[in-house]
């Protein structure tokens, strides 16, 4: 295994789905159901059995809209406000209307959700305004249950192939070029439609531990989705709205105030005082977190040591077995007992992820990108605060729409020279006698991301970032060196990461205002609704460099009153409450 082999194959399908994490499997199931004759391929860099953010399971649905607890209108309003108004509501509203059906479907797959004594879903309040968090007591079964459905529906699964570039022709998508991660052999997949569900750009900033894989996101999500969409000419929206999360220091996993909050846990400063009213992740919340640290009241902690023994035991049970089961090992190693000590948190490095913020490939309410036949869903598509249920639901929209699209389409012709060019690019690091290994290219890129792009954002620093990235690119293109197919996968990832770093700098420089709290805190500029109440769309310019433009926010479907607009700006606990 891992020796570099020379080989290329070509296969055809109706719908190619890239990424078999969360959105991808649901897209496959829905497409097959709608168009049973369609030939569907689900392709993943890892193994679909255990790939993506939910590889071990999940603690709950962070954003379910369940009748009796919330209405689609309320949810749409909350997400619009949480995202500082920059939201094409149609996609959020459609999600809010249809996600309940998806929950019932997941339930029928054997993934159980918490119910109360009357058998009703037991939804918890975590967000600032509404009630949307639905715990999953057996959340560790989610991936297995999905996999069973994929087998039952006879979806063709191809594991351990990494997609590197999309093929386009006749103004639409034509397929994708993929590379085997264990042999470097090529697979060209011709497809009438392509659905991308490649997850977040999770390896953009460098964790403070210095460990390249010590990320919040599943570290196999290295931003290829963003890079591939960019090189194919698709539009990417609001990339300057970075993902920055409040995490357990060093462990870099969620502290899970969403689990602990409804049981009485909360985020506190070093004095054990509550300083934010709501633990739901937003740019404004992260700004308060940052201000608390700057004000000398840090570190910030998750506080559970005031809770009753049974409550702490229950929190431990959930947090130590499902989503990130090494969390228990971590705390044990550090001698942290939730009953006695608070859990130290910190501000994460930056990434792109609409699952938690809003940075992603631009899509509409059918999950269509700006390229006909190309869809995106989940963390890499720009529907804000989408989380796991958003990935499932928009994956479903993409699968259904693509099933109709391919019924009337034939393959688009593409230029064979594109394949040759990609082979040359991919294999270049295998042709050298020696050089710079991909881990050093990646480390340097990500260290520079931390130094110059991490908010608060400063114009001069971002210009320096662009200069340094260009130097790293020069090295990457002319001197990167790999010894086996596994290292080649890392080299291709390093290239996606560098593309994302360039996009992050360009997008952040373009929006000359501050918005989304810490996510786009440009210290030299105030919020400026007059000029910047709009999306920014980034595409690959004619000079091969990122180009940005403004795009209007579509008229709202659900109106928002003037006095509701800044609900998320009021996060700080008032002094009288803090003193309690």
């Amino acid at each position, binding site marked *: 295994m891992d020796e570099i082999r020379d080989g290329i194959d070509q296969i055809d399908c109706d719908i190619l789905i890239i990424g078999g994490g969360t959105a991808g499997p649901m897209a496959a199931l829905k497409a097959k159901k709608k168009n049973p004759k369609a030939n569907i391929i689900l392709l993943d860099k890892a193994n679909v059995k255990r790939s993506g953010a939910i590889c071990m399971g999940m603690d709950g649905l962070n954003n379910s809209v369940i009748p009796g607890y919330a209405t689609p209108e309320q949810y749409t309003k909350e997400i619009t406000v949480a995202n500082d108004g920059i939201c094409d509501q149609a996609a959020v509203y459609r999600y809010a209307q249809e996600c309940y059906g998806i929950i019932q479907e997941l339930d029928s797959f054997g993934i159980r959700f918490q119910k109360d004594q009357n058998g009703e879903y037991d939804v918890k309040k975590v967000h600032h305004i509404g009630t949307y968090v639905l715990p999953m007591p057996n959340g560790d079964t989610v991936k297995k249950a999905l996999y069973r459905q994929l087998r039952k529906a006879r979806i063709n699964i191809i594991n351990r192939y990494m997609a590197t570039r999309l093929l386009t022709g006749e103004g639409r998508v034509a397929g994708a070029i993929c590379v085997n991660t*264990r042999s470097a052999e090529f697979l060209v997949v011709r497809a009438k439609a392509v659905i991308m569900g490649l997850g977040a750009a999770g390896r953009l900033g460098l964790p403070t531990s210095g460990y390249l894989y010590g990320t919040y996101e599943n*570290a196999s999500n290295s931003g290829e989705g963003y890079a591939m969409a960019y090189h194919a000419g698709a539009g990417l929206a609001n990339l300057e709205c970075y993902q920055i999360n409040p995490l357990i220091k060093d462990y870099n996993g969620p502290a899970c105030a969403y689990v602990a909050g409804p049981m009485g846990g909360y985020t506190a400063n070093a004095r054990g005082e509550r300083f934010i009213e709501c633990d739901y992740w937003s740019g404004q919340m992260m700004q308060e977190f940052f201000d608390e640290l700057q004000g000398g009241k840090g570190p910030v902690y998750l506080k559970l040591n005031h809770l009753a023994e049974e409550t702490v035991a229950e929190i431990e049970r959930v947090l130590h077995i499902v989503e*990130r089961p090494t969390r228990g*090992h971590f705390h044990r190693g550090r001698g942290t007992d939730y009953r006695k000590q608070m859990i130290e948190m910190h501000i994460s490095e930056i990434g792109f992820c609409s699952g938690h913020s809003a940075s992603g490939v631009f899509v509409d309410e059918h999950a269509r990108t700006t390229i006909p036949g190309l869809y995106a869903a989940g963390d890499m598509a720009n529907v804000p605060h989408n989380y796991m249920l958003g990935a499932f639901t928009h994956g479903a929209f993409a699968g259904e729409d693509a099933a109709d699209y391919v019924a009337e389409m034939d393959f688009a012709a593409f230029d064979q020279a594109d394949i040759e060019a990609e082979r040359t690019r991919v294999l270049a690091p295998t042709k050298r006698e*020696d050089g710079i290994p991909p881990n050093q290219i990646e480390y340097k890129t990500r260290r520079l991301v931390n130094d110059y792009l991490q908010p608060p954002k400063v114009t001069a620093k971002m210009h320096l970032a662009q200069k340094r990235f260009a130097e790293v690119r020069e090295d990457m293109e002319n001197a990167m060196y790999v010894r086996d197919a596994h290292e080649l996968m890392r080299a291709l990832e390093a290239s996606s990461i560098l593309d994302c770093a360039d996009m992050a700098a360009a997008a952040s420089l373009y929006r000359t205002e501050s918005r989304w709290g810490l996510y786009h805190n440009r210290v030299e500029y105030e919020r400026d609704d007059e000029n910047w109440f709009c999306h920014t769309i980034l595409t690959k310019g004619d000079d091969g460099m990122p180009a940005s433009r403004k795009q209007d926010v579509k008229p709202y479907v659900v109106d928002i009153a003037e006095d509701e607009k800044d609900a998320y700006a009021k996060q700080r606990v008032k002094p009288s409450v803090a003193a309690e």
Partner: protein
Amino acid sequence: MPLAQTATTVPVVVNDDLCIADKGCTVCVDVCPLDVLRIAETAEGSKTAYMKYDECWYCMPCEADCPTGAVTVNLPYLLK
């Protein structure tokens, strides 16, 4: 530009006595999302799984899915 031989300690350990890679098992290698595990063959021809690349997300499918409980996931030293 020759490459250095810098050592690094890996977080995932496999108990050779429990591992049944000899019988053809490759479960941990198959499921790892980062693809960092491999099967090693000794000079005598016996096989065990091991962590070949220090690129671990400490996520645990390898440990959870191993049929004999041979895998232990520790935290990478840099963040533990």
